[in-house]
């Protein structure tokens, strides 16, 4: 505590003297003393310490692609200046950021000197980095943030100033100078947004550059090169035109790359755009069977069918032009996550139809539990407790290496937090009789507990799982597997399984894993792998081999947000899914008549099925004749689309009875027709065009739609990227039969949309900003940075040492309010005592 005006304490002796001299005032009475003391205190202005004298400086160092070449040569010098000019009680913290943020000093990779930034660099998330810093600040110390960046954040800085002001943290910044005289870049990349099937289209690339030259340009379509030419740049501008024709419907991603010999800013040499090929309503059959009888039946019934057997070729663009998607016995982990994410929007907003057909790698056994598709289905995949026949002993071997200390892009959560949540979710999904052990691993295994029964320990286990922290280094895989097997070996249960979770770029110590896994396989213990990263990472092949030898599945996912769902999927597919391999009777129900006009002559028996349960609100057309009475065929409406499930295989193993069914074709036709929904009446058209980063959507309709539009005004709903967040976009009515919406394409995310009029829907997209936003150098972001800095009380720091001398937030706070409240209470008590004469002490008579 301190006193701002201690000189007022001189009043005390004066008041004492007055009290002694003028005894009649009775100043010695306790409440009067209290009142006077309070008054003198108030005059002296006592203050309590709010924060320490020292300053915590949080330096955000930009490692993104657009900034690293500018900042790298200067970083060492700047950091030295800051280190040398700080005061004794000041502290310096460094946060490296680009798409993700991590505190300097966290050991990210075991073999990379620990301090190298190893996150994604294709974005500059300054707002997230600042939030990351704010979340770690100590409340009892003054703090400032200093951003060393090129200023061109790829995410908006909305709300940053408010966050800084709320915590009284000023934001300073230092921008490096940029030289762009010798830079060639893609000025424009123009392609038609939509073309007809086999229609030739014209595209144009505009190249801008500081010097006249012939600039080599290469063109790609869906990642494959389709040509290379030279664009002559004269007076700063060069143009290149090309034609192309597309022979199958869907959306195609074109990319153009400049390859000049000498370029000061190489990052702005690429641009990409989607072009959609229109066709009639199409069925997209994604199947794991090479010659799928379902595809043949659909074609025979007159449907336009696109069959995809190469599951790695599927992407979100495949949904364009498709009216129905059929997933025939495909596991989720073999599909592009963007495609899987896109199915929800495809059905709910764009009016698409979705069917899931049974098999040994379908439904929960295919990992669909916990996926974004699961809520769409009219059945629940998770096996009920009373139906489970086998207990499971499971060990979760978790990577807690340095890479897990990085933040998730766009958030302040660490990847370890999400992995912990995944483990906790897995525990939540296991049955009471199942056994579990969680084993965090870095260079040694650190089991949280021995193998214990889940039932009585569920809460405690989940709490322990959520507290696992990243400790640095890499994960020793053999050590982890060995520890898991040692724990599971004595368990005498029906199933033993290890889930190995590891960083696909930092999984070390293979050891004698081949022998170990062979031993485990012999003892019927399986191993699945969840790899954080991609198949292209350095240790991905090793992890794939572990999964293969372990008889389990492997999932690669670069998005740490998906971890909880992946853990859940894997747990359910191991512990809570069932494919019944025995022939069972099929019983029809009247529900079929909601789908088709005429009754169906069903087959009497099926060879096997995926056990699932009907969801409330869904309709079932056929059920099993066994004790489960499980829905073999179920369907319902979802948003503007329709979803159906057929829980028995229609191809491959366990389908011989089904394939021999005489109504196989008729059933397929009815199913596909129902999923197609009502055809969109003519008279409605949607046209989109790109103007830089602005997308214009024009909706045209003729007079036959007037009444429908009057009843339901058209809505435009868009979904950006894979996070699936929906946003409504307002239309402007330009003329009778013409609405227009304009929207900005943000960042590097693609955008998909749906125009809804009542229960009819038109789809739009995918479409993305033409040039990489990391290189678009949007001046608005620089203005936003400056504004946030000024509003928070910061400034641009040309002399970095200045930052330590900048005004600091007040470290002291007044307590006047409390003293005044105490004074008023004292006054009342004093008046009452004086008036009524009560006292706490009795005088001796």
């Amino acid at each position, binding site marked *: 505590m301190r006193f701002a*005006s201690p000189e007022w304490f001189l*009043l005390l002796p004066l008041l004492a003297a007055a009290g002694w001299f*003028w*005894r*009649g*005032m*009775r*100043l010695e009475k306790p409440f*009067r003393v209290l*009142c*006077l003391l309070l*008054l003198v205190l*108030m*005059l002296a202005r006592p203050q309590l310490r709010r924060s320490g004298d020292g300053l915590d400086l949080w330096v955000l160092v930009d490692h993104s692609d657009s900034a690293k070449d500018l900042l790298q040569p200067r970083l060492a010098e700047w950091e030295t200046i800051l280190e040398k000019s700080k005061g004794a009680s000041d502290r310096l913290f460094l946060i490296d950021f680009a798409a993700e943020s991590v505190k300097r000093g966290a050991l990210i990779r075991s073999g990379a000197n620990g301090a190298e930034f190893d996150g994604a660099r294709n974005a500059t998330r300054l707002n997230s980095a600042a939030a990351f810093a704010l979340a770690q600040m100590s409340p009892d110390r003054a703090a400032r943030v200093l951003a060393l960046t090129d200023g061109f954040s790829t995410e908006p800085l*909305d*709300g940053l*100033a*408010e966050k800084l002001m709320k915590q009284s943290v000023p934001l300073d910044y230092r921008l490096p100078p940029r030289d762009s005289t010798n830079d060639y870049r893609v000025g424009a990349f123009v392609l*038609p947004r*939509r073309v*007809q099937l*086999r*229609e*030739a*289209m*014209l595209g144009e690339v505009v190249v801008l550059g500081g010097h006249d030259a012939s600039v080599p340009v290469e063109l790609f379509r869906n990642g494959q090169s389709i040509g290379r030419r030279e664009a002559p740049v004269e007076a700063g501008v060069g143009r290149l035109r090309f*034609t192309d*024709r597309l022979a199958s419907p869907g959306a195609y991603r074109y990319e153009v790359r400049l390859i000049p010999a000498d370029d000061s800013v190489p990052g702005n040499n690429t641009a990409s755009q989607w072009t959609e090929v229109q066709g009639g309503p199409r069925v997209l059959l994604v199947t794991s069977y090479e010659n799928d009888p379902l595809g043949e039946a659909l074609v025979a019934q007159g449907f336009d069918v696109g069959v995809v057997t190469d599951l790695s070729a599927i992407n979100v663009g495949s949904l364009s032009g498709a009216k129905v998607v059929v997933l025939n016995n495909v596991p989720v982990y073999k599909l592009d996550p963007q495609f899987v994410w896109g199915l929800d929007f495809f059905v709910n907003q764009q009016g698409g139809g979705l069917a899931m057909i049974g098999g040994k790698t379908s439904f929960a056994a295919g990992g669909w539990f916990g996926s974004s598709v699961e809520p769409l289905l009219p059945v629940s995949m998770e096996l009920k407790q009373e139906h489970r026949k086998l207990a499971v002993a499971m060990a979760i071997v978790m990577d807690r290496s340095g890479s897990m200390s990085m933040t998730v892009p766009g958030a302040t959560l660490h990847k370890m937090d999400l992995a912990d949540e995944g483990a906790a979710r897995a525990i939540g999904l296991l049955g009471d009789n199942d056994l579990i052990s969680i084993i965090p691993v870095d260079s040694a295994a650190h089991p949280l507990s021995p193998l214990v029964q889940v039932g009585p320990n569920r809460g405690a286990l989940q709490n322990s799982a959520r507290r696992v922290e990243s400790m640095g280094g890499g994960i020793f895989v053999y050590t982890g597997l060995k520890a898991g097997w040692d724990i599971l070996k004595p368990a005498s249960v029906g199933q033993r399984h290890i889930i190995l979770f590891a960083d696909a770029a930092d999984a070390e110590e293979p050891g004698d894993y081949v022998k170990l896994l062979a031993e485990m396989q012999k003892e019927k213990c399986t191993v699945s792998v969840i790899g954080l990263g991609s198949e292209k990472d350095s240790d991905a092949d090793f992890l794939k081999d572990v999964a293969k030898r372990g008889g389990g599945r492997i999932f690669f996912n670069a998005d740490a947000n998906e971890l909880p769902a992946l853990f859940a999927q894997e747990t359910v597919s191991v512990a809570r899914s069932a494919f019944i391999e025995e022939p069972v009777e099929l019983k029809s129900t009247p529900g079929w008549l909601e789908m088709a006009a005429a009754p169906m002559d069903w087959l009497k028996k099926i060879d096997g099925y995926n056990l699932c349960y009907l969801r409330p609100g869904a309709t079932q057309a056929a059920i099993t004749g066994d004790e489960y009475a499980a829905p073999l065929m179920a369907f319902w409406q979802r948003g503007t689309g329709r979803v159906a499930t057929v829980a028995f295989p229609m191809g491959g193993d366990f389908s011989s009875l089904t394939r021999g069914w005489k109504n196989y074709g008729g059933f397929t036709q009815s199913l596909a027709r129902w999923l197609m929904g009502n055809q969109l009446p003519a008279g409605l058209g949607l*046209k989109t065009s790109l103007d830089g980063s602005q997308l214009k959507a024009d909706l045209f309709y003729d*007079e036959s739609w*007037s*009444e429908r539009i*009057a*009843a339901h*005004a058209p809505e435009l709903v868009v979904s950006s990227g894979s996070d699936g967040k929906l946003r409504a*976009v*307002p*239309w*402007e*009515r*330009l*003329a*009778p039969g013409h609405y227009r919406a304009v929207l900005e394409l943000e960042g590097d995310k693609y955008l998909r949309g749906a125009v809804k009029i009542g229960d009819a829907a038109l789809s739009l997209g995918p479409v993305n900003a033409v040039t990489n936003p990391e290189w678009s150098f949007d001046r608005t972001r620089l203005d936003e940075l400056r*504004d946030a800095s*000024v*509003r928070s009380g910061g400034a641009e720091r040309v002399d970095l040492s200045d930052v330590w001398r900048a005004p600091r937030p007040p470290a002291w706070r007044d307590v*006047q*309010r409390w003293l*005044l*409240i105490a*004074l*008023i209470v004292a*006054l*009342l008590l004093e*008046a*009452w005592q*004086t*008036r*009524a*004469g009560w006292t706490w002490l009795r005088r001796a008579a």
Partner: protein
Amino acid sequence: MRLILANPAGLWALTAIPLVLLIHFLQEQSRKVRSSTLFLLDRVKPESVGGARLERLRHSVPLWLQLLAVTIIAWLLAEPRWIRQDSRQTVVVVLDSSVSMSAFKKETRALLQNKLSHWPGAAAHTDWHLLESGPRKPRLYAGSETGELLKAFDKWEPTQGAHAPDAALLTGRGLVRSSAGIVIFVTDRKTEVSADVALMSAGELIENVGFAGGEASVGRSLRERNQVSQDDGSRGAPATYWSALVKNYGRETQEREWWMEEEGGSQKAEGGKGKHKFTIEPGQTIALQGELPPDVERVTLVLGADKFTWDDRLPLQKPKPRIVHAAVRAPGASGELMKKIFAALDGVELGSLTPDFVVDELGNAPGSDAVQLGGSLGENGALDPAWVAAEDHRLTRDLAWSGLLSGRPLELTMGDGDIPLLWKGNRALALLRPGATADGRQIQRLILNWDLAQSNAARVPALPVMLQRFVEMVRERKAEPWAGNFEVAQRIEAGGRRQEAKVELRVNGATTMFEGRAPERPGFFEVLEDDKIWISGAAHFADIREADFRDAESLDTSKQRRIETALKQSEADPWTPLWMLALVACFIGAWAWRGTRTGKSVVSESVRQYVKA
């Protein structure tokens, strides 16, 4: 100097005043006085009735001093702050230009008058800006007077359809940037805005029923529309028929009346006559149809009024379309094909002696707009396998040309103004060529650079669509008078006017410059070219999103921001130490007064004198 209270809750301390008064109602403790003898004891007036706890309130100096002390404490607790004399703030008010705001203009004015009046207290100087959210709208006011701002508001009319206010809010934020202040978006419902923008709304639910669109067309009989055949086999006589949609946007069933008011000589329908009652359920849309009275050019359909009046009147104009006259001069099969295509298009008449456009062979100089047919290289019927690729142009956009099979096009020299439309290989298959007639009139030539007879053009749907689009281009440039029905603020193509002509918009007798759009308010209008009527029209409201008030609600999020802004612009009361010293004085004074009263000995004057002696 202006004052604000940083902690108005501190005024609750004034509740101590009745407590002080209550204390002074209490009977004072009786004073014990020691005296050795009874006779020295003065007779004193009894001051209280023995045995009672309460007595009447007596005025006393300590009472008033204590009350004063409580008042000063309350004042200090309320933390008065004085606005700095050099403080400045910018308040930007962005009005939602959506037409739905017209239903709440009075309420919005009252809201603004009430809420904005508090803002000048937050700084010594306030810069006011009044903008509106509609694109193409100028600033309404900039200055330092709230009264002038409100006057500008009174003159403002919201006339836009649904739109995003982002651009105006961004402008507003730019005005406030790096100075104290706020952007306030004034609308009639809850809207998503960024964190630094405050919302104000005076909206409320309205049970609105209104017209949701309408049209008038000539020559289609009701029977044709309803597909009912007549007994005598004859067709209905040409007439002008109208149809309109009425929608109930509210949550309750409504009863309304509609009637027709005529213009062009006939009197308005008298009250009660020709009124039609109907009942409409919530969310329901009903269609009305009828026939315009003969010799009547304009009528207005009227609904019984409610709070939102924009959709209660539907003006309808008898349409007079522009017919495009064409002459096909090209010989042979190609010419026959062109005749067939143009004869099938709406609004085109063939065989005119003064055509608006001609169809002829390439090489003949046309005196008007033209479609010119070229030939192909190659021997009889030899087709060129090169792809047909289309440019992104109004005439060719979104059409499928891949099915067009033709011979190799002639090599044409492209002029500076030539616009290529279709390519076959590296040769232009179709292009648009501007030109001029001998008398200087600008014309357009659509050149189809292949032999139509030697191609499958007759079976390619894209060709007639392209030709129809070309006809529309010709129609837009026609100068003859015409009439039609439009939506408010709809763009009107006026390509046919002369460059040097004076073109004006006349609405209700008042003329303004014509800006290429229908009026912003429903009603009848004319577009005049050199004071002659060129376009007669009726503009009606049709943006149904603006007529739906189910989400309208009142709100105000600006209050807290005002307090925060004021605090930043103020300084603590410099007289605080003086108030505290005054408190000391009050306390000392009260105690001293009591001390003087009670300290006085009750020994009588006579005893004092005795002791003196």
